């Protein structure tokens, strides 16, 4: 009987593959056999590079000659919290230069935590004739001049999304560089920009782009101009307001309410800086249809939050400040039965005392009342093992659980015990848990629970926890699907790392800072595992100037097929593998 795999013409296989979009599945396809690898690589349109240093541009281009879309991530996650010094790396320029030559048909570039210059943006604008999507998440290194180049040249641009990037805001007139003939905008997110953009230009842009679905303004966008803008785009699905405050004038309110009434497709709202609560009812007309609401910059108190959120019965995602308090979360639990994701941010994280009535009880309520809740980020000041236990039993469908108890090493406030048992309950009951962030007082025990139960865990964040290397060993030896591990200020040293060295090649990356890993151990790892880059970050000067037993400040280990990187700053040292030692 002929083997089926060989009897299909390539074109047929290619056609079948075209229905497979997930990059993971595509990866699996490519491993079936050589011919499938070949067929797959020639028709691959999108690639996701989780660590820009894991592979070189040349290698990607060589394997996938026909890419249309690339996603690249640069700095480690802890860079978000100032743990990665300036100049560390994550430069996208070499990628853009190489792709400008190799992929004239490239349509999408999505970057996260990378450095991109105006020159790069200019190169993008001029090299890719059919460029449609630019997403820059937490990026930096560019100015509004670079945006002007994109606006001026990308005739087919559909998405320009600058999520939380640091943009040097030179001039608000960059927006005017979109030509009058340009009408294809679908999504625009400029919420991170510091200054006012040229508003008349924005209004004209919005009103001539009939497919515009997402518009996220920046804080400087005045509220009294919002109504007009909305009237020009009643088809908007997602809106980010600017500052939600104005001199209280009845006409501003009624105009705004009328404009919101016209937005029948609106599903998501965000922005809400500087909220004047009396303006909130203007948004009521859209509330019942909202699935996503981001009030995490709205410094309004619980009663106003309760009034607003109480209107949003269809809510699936809520981001809010802890001003919502337990009372507000009770209301959320009672009203929003479709809730999938909750993030509660702290209003006063650096204060010494509790300033709001938000406790573990709020999270317990939501876990009880919202059967679809699976993603949580919760900042609070107190927690108990009992509460975590209840949450775990209520929500075995939890996939992402990030708890941040603000004061490090805070115990269960009722029993004064570590929170090992509570987090243990989470990993035991939530069998599909993919992401976990720990906090509070934790011993090696919690890591034993994690290693035993968290078999689907892919990303773990640990801070101020554990007693010994045993903790780290439990995680590295037990968590079969671990891809990213980030640790700070834990008493983990060499033993667990060296004993589980091979595990590191199965992960994307490991970050350890303010731990007890010695320089000698780093050298050893670097020597023995050539497919890893073992990077020591130490601002005290060359690690050679200290004894081998001396702990390094920070350590970033990642797997790579392209060898040590060449763009490191002076405070980063790559531990060489055996083949490099001359």
């Amino acid at each position, binding site marked *: 009987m002929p083997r089926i795999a060989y009897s299909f013409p390539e074109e047929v296989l290619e056609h079948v593959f075209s229905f497979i979009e997930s990059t993971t599945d595509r990866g699996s396809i490519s491993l079936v056999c050589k011919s499938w690898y070949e067929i797959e690589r020639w028709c691959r349109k999108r690639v996701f590079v989780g660590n820009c240093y894991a592979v070189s541009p040349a290698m990607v281009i060589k394997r996938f000659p026909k890419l249309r879309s690339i996603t690249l991530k640069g700095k480690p996650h802890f860079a978000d919290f100032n743990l990665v010094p*300036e100049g560390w790396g994550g430069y996208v320029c070499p990628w853009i230069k190489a792709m400008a030559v190799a992929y004239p048909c490239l349509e999408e570039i999505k970057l996260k935590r990378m450095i991109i210059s105006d020159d790069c943006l200019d190169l993008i604008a001029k090299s890719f004739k059919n460029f449609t999507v630019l997403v820059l998440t937490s990026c930096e290194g560019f100015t509004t001049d670079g945006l002007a180049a994109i606006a001026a040249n990308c005739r087919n641009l559909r998405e320009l999304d600058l999520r939380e990037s640091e943009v040097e805001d*030179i001039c608000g007139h960059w927006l005017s560089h979109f030509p009058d003939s340009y009408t294809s905008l679908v999504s625009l997110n400029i919420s991170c920009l510091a200054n006012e953009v040229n508003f008349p230009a924005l209004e004209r842009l919005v009103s001539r782009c009939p497919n515009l679905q997402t518009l996220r303004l920046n804080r400087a966008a005045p509220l009294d101009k919002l109504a007009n803008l909305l009237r020009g785009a009643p088809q908007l699905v997602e809106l980010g307001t600017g500052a939600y405050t104005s001199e209280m004038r009845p006409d501003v309110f009624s105009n705004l309410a009328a404009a919101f009434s016209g937005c029948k497709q609106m599903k998501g709202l965000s922005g809400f800086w500087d909220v004047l609560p009396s303006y909130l009812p203007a948004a009521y007309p859209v509330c019942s249809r909202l699935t996503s609401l981001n009030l995490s910059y709205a410094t309004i108190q619980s009663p106003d939050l309760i009034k607003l959120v109480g209107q949003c019965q269809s809510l699936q995602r809520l981001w809010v400040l802890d001003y919502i308090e337990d009372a507000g979360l009770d209301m959320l639990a009672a009203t929003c039965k479709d809730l999938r994701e909750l993030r509660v941010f702290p209003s006063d994280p650096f204060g010494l005392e509790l300033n709001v009535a938000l406790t573990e009880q709020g999270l317990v309520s939501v876990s009880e009342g919202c059967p679809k809740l699976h993603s949580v980020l919760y900042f609070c000041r107190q927690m108990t093992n009992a509460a975590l236990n209840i949450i775990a039993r209520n929500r075995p469908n939890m996939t992402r659980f990030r708890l941040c108890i603000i004061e490090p090493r805070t115990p269960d406030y009722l029993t004064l015990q570590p929170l090992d048992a509570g987090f243990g309950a989470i990993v035991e009951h939530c069998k599909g848990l993919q992401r976990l962030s720990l906090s509070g007082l934790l011993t090696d025990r919690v890591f034993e629970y994690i290693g035993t139960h968290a078999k689907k865990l892919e990303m773990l964040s640990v801070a101020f926890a554990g007693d010994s290397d045993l903790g780290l060993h439990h995680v590295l030896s037990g968590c079969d699907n671990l891809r990213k591990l980030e640790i*700070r200020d834990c008493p983990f040293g060499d033993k667990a790392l060296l004993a589980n060295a091979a595990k590191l090649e199965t992960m994307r990356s490991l970050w350890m800072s303010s731990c007890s890993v010695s320089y000698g151990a780093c050298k050893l790892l670097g020597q023995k595992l050539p497919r890893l880059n073992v990077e020591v970050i130490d601002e005290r000067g060359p690690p050679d100037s200290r004894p081998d037993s001396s702990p390094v400040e920070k350590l970033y280990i990642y797997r790579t097929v392209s060898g040590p990187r060449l763009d490191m700053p002076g405070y980063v040292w790559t531990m060489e593998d055996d083949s490099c030692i001359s």
Partner: protein
Amino acid sequence: MDKTSSSLNFKETELRLGLPGCESPDRKPVTSTDRGVSFFGNKNLNINVCSPLNNLVASVGAKRGFSNAIDESVKKLHEKNKQVAGTNEDANAHAPAAKTQIVGWPPIRSFRKNTMASNLTKSNDEAEGKPGFECLYVKVSMDGAPYLRKVDLKIYNNYMELSSALEKMMFADSCRRLRIMKGSEAIGLAPRAMEKS
């Protein structure tokens, strides 16, 4: 309030502190539209910045000596503070000493920290004397050290504390010049309220 021209260039916004008597080339003279900045003094010091929101602008005259320049800035700043600060006039009625802040903890992104910090002078609950976010991140470049540092200016009470902390952070053994660079980590405080007044 005046709007700063949108054509601020990098050199203009560099704060360079040299030894007294040295010249600083490439600088325009200080104009009356510039706003002084002082990064030491009491904890209630509101640091006023020009637009753009996220840029820390310092104007120190090229030819003036260091301490003269700082005194000038402090004077200017106190004048401006009287217009804006409102509730925070009493130098002694400030928050209890802030505990030592741990770098990167709690884990909150810079964008959020910066945004919330600029709510400081808008907050209605100033009565507690402890508004939201007490941090002001700037990028600092020290001569002799090749890389910028992000530091939180709010945890230093005066220039000496800042300088010695920076020395400890850097490779350089001595600090002869301190250059604070305009960076998007710096925070604008209350420009909205000010512009409308």
